[in-house]
């Protein structure tokens, strides 16, 4: 048996792909999920704020997931839980997916298309080499969130959080609500890395101090965390020795970024973009390997799940076109480049120029009163849009009209321009 579509991952991206793919007419598909239930990271995100863009409702993570899961059950879409994909092989016309499944044992599944929807993992304390000892009580914020929200355990009483990413902010509030004392959130950048609504609702509303331009210079304690040393950093992120301060605590949470989880993709031969750490894709969200698509956090880190679903639906549409031979095939390849003040842009290439294309990108530093300019190699401007404020914590989007792509020369470059 040969599947039309295998979806690797049953989180928000995978679920959205499955739902949309079914609606386009793809029935012969399977969702592979390594956990014991569908929903991915949404299951532990019991706070609300999901679905505002897509459903015009404020849902919790599990509620958002259940909208898709119920639909999948209703449509009878196949999924396999407790199933870890160990490897994907490209055998030309077919891809072979090797799976270790709790229920079904070792499987090798053949498929015409694959959607990579494995999500991301958290950057760790060790990756940023926060010095000190290695005691219990040091957690990634997402792991602490699982212990508290899924398993129902307390992980500590006096908490310092390093990094003001959204998970860190959400966990500052959550730890407070379950009875811990959150002493402060420490952020090495001079601005928060989370959504501004989270800074307001999770820190300000609970009087939790946010220390910008600060970092943890040492973790102390041999068995359990006993204290951390916190210091201010200068504009080059060098520690200002005179500002060192020891803070007693039993727990440190790290919320220092997410990394797309692409070991399977790399082994398959998918090209990875150093900027996103996700696959390089064209406007069809297709990787360099025909029939292999990517969406969600495995492609680039999203701040809002609604946009993950949107992107996943685009991927599902493209899978349908691939399977029905209605894909736009073009020889040309326009490379999308960005200036230094932009950290990445997705898709990385455009092949066809007759449909509208949404570009997603992030800026490197917060800025206000800027113009977003997209131009070709000869300086012809395709997009020139004013923004009052941009921030690395929020993904930006611009739309290019298909007809504008017809006459462009060379490659495209996206840049910011300060408004006079």
């Amino acid at each position, binding site marked *: 048996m040969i599947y039309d579509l295998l979806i690797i991952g049953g989180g928000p991206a995978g679920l959205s792909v499955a739902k949309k793919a079914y609606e386009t007419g793809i029935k012969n598909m399977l969702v592979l999920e390594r956990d014991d239930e569908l929903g991915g990271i949404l299951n532990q995100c019991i706070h609300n704020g999901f679905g505002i863009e897509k459903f015009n409702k404020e849902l919790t993570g599990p509620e958002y997931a259940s909208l898709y899961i119920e639909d999948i059950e209703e449509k009878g879409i196949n999924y396999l839980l407790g199933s870890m994909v160990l490897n994907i092989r490209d055998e030309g016309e077919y891809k072979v997916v090797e799976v270790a499944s709790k229920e079904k044992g070792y499987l090798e599944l053949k498929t015409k298309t694959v959607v990579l929807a494995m999500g991301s993992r958290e950057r760790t304390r060790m*990756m940023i080499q926060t010095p000190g000892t290695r005691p219990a009580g040091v957690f990634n914020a997402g792991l602490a969130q699982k212990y508290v929200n899924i398993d129902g355990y307390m992980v500590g009483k006096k908490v310092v959080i390093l990094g003001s990413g959204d998970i860190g902010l959400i966990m500052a509030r959550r730890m407070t609500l379950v009875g811990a004392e959150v002493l402060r959130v420490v952020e090495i950048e001079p601005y928060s890395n989370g959504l501004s609504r989270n800074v307001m609702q999770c820190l300000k509303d609970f009087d939790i101090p946010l220390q910008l331009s600060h970092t943890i210079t040492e973790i102390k304690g041999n068995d359990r965390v006993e204290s951390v040393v916190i210091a201010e950093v200068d504009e080059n992120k060098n520690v200002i020795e005179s500002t060192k301060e020891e803070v007693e605590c039993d727990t440190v949470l790290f919320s220092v970024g997410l990394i797309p989880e692409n070991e399977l993709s790399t082994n398959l031969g998918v090209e990875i973009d150093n900027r996103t750490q996700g696959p390089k894709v064209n406007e069809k969200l297709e990787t360099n390997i025909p029939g292999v698509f990517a969406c969600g956090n495995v492609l680039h880190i999203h701040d809002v799940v609604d946009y993950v679903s949107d992107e996943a639906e685009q991927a599902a549409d493209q899978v349908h076109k691939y399977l029905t031979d209605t894909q736009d095939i073009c020889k040309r390849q326009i490379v999308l480049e960005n200036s230094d003040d932009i950290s990445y842009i997705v898709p990385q290439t455009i092949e066809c120029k007759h449909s509208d294309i949404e570009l997603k990108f992030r800026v490197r530093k917060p800025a206000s009163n800027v113009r977003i300019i997209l131009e070709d190699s000869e300086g012809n401007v395709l997009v020139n849009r004013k923004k009052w404020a941009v921030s690395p914590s929020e993904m930006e989007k611009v739309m290019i009209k298909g007809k504008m792509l017809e006459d462009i020369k060379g490659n495209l470059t996206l840049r910011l321009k300060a408004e006079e």
Partner: protein
Amino acid sequence: MKKYDVIVIGGGVTGANALRELSKYELDVLLLESNADFGAGVTKGNGGAVHSGYDATKGSLKAKLNVEAVEMWPEYAKDLDIPYERLPSMTLAFNEEERETLEELLENGKANNVPDLRIIEKDEILEIEPTVNPDVKYALIAPSSGITEPYIVAYACIENAIKNGAEAKASQKVIDIKKIESGYKVITSDSEYETKMVVNAAGVYGDVIADMVNPGKYSITERHGSLMILDNAQGLELKATLFPVPSKHSKGMAAIPACAGNIILGSTAEVMNDKENHAFTRDQSELLFTSASKLLPRLRRKDIIRVFTGLRPVEVNSDNDFVIEEDIDNKDFYNAIGIQSPGIAASPAVGAYVVELIKENHDLKAKENYDKTRKGIVDFSELDTEQKRDLIELDPAYAHVVCRCETVTEGEILDSIRRPGGATTIDGVKRRTRAGMGRCQGGFCESRIVTILSNELGKKPEEILKENAGSEIIIGEE
């Protein structure tokens, strides 16, 4: 009270090898480890290089045992199913002055009877390992060098000794030793044991244990060494362990290809005189990366997944040598202390040497049914398709991948807990199976391993330790 013939204090590679050697004879032997797990002291803070022995001072005990052990390693590793690979080491010289040091090391190595040592030049170096900095001029190559996983050495020896009738107990910190008529009474925080003989293999606490019978005789200082682990997906498969030209106290910041495909950089060397300081500093982690990058310019910072610090016990009156001897005033109290680098490489010979000392005082009777083998935990990720299929058919727990980064299954984790001398802690599971050792550092699997340990040990999740008492991961229910 059961009376033992020999009590070994310390369950690192030294004590574990001594225990295994003793278990070959008709003796009642017991090993006591102060930590909650074996191999969790000096042994765990190590890069895993099996040094060939060219740099140990000629004529030293260290040199003798190192070179003897290198001969033993292939069969030893096979018997005990320990990860081991014979892989040359290359000490890299970038100028003529450094070449002089290579010449001295070559002479020293020859005096130590290290086989096949020679100095090679740039072209040959790059042929062996093309990713070496092309500015390299010369290297001392030691083909008898190798790599292993140090704590697996300790576990393998202890498991094998238990199989042959020995006992081993963790969480037994020795607080006093009293001389009694029949030998010694060894007192731990919650028990007392009587024994005819004692082997002191207590690592950085070797002097503290020795002081209990002969105060002030030995003094151990701690040389702290930080090491750095790079992701096994970093794309470099080194064909040799690479060292810079050494300084007086350290072999320098090496790049060691670990058995599991990672690269380990290290270690730094600073005398700190603190038996419990396992902290690393920013300066050390910077030094590790920048020094190793001089040997291997292709190293990438984004591949760093862990920095850790180990302690090397240095006996201060012994000119950097191992001290393996019977206490001068206390019959049948044997010290095996100051076992710093190359303590891992030398450990099989150290164990045998301890037994030789005992044999000078006693006639030991060999066991008739001694079994020298031990089977390790299967490594699911290394199996081919057919083997994976068969194993899962036999036990479905091998179809449940718990650690995604290192592809470690529930079957492997259960085996690591259930086998004799098995894991009782998160770090114990990690060292035995690699679960949690990968790039996400347990972010995905740690909570799942807490649950497995809790079920297997019949303990509450809040009683599950990361490493030692006081290192509970969670503090209770919400």
